[in-house]
């Protein structure tokens, strides 16, 4: 069975592929808030903006520092609360995925 990926360490942040070890190291390096852990490790900086990992990381932070869990606030929510297409705000009606002049696919093939 393939578990070579597991040997690279247990992930806590799914989006940015940050391991528990990296988070603990950031805390040892002085991080005391979720924001600081995020700045150092990128945990919570991905597309989901920390929605999956912030609770797990809060628990690690509480465990490592002894800070009470009720004092660990989220890293800060900012608009937009969901990924929003730029055209939705910048422009009039335009449906996702329709009549594209510029294609990403080519960039992916590079």
């Amino acid at each position, binding site marked *: 069975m393939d578990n070579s*990926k597991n040997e690279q360490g247990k992930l806590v942040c799914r989006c940015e*592929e940050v391991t528990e070890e990296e988070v603990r190291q950031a805390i040892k390096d002085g991080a005391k808030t979720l924001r600081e852990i995020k700045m150092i490790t990128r945990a919570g900086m991905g*597309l989901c903006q920390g929605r999956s990992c912030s609770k797990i990381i809060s628990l690690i932070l509480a465990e490592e520092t002894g800070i009470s869990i009720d004092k660990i606030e989220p890293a800060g929510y900012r608009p937009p609360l969901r*990924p929003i297409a730029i055209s939705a705000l910048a422009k009039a009606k335009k449906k*996702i*995925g*329709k009549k*594209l002049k510029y294609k990403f*696919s080519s960039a*992916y093939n590079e």
Partner: protein
Amino acid sequence: MRITIHPILGLLKERKKITIEIDGQKIEALEGEPIAAALWNAGIRDFRYTRKRKEPRGFFCGIGLCTDCKMIVNGIPNIRTCVTLVEKGMKIQRQRD
């Protein structure tokens, strides 16, 4: 696998079948269902491969929050397939960041 008959929900209602494409492979989907559901039904579990570890990822939260099911849809990357409904002829690619 579709649950065609269910003790509480009864028979699966007839819905229009459409075809979508995943990395060139044609699969059947039902109108009104999200892309992720159609893929799962077709037995596809790996929706994307991650940047660092090149790990497979699939359906996880189902409500558009975890963003793990993101794929390239009609050329546009990072589309949350669990909340994006299928459309006829949609071209979907596994995202390899």
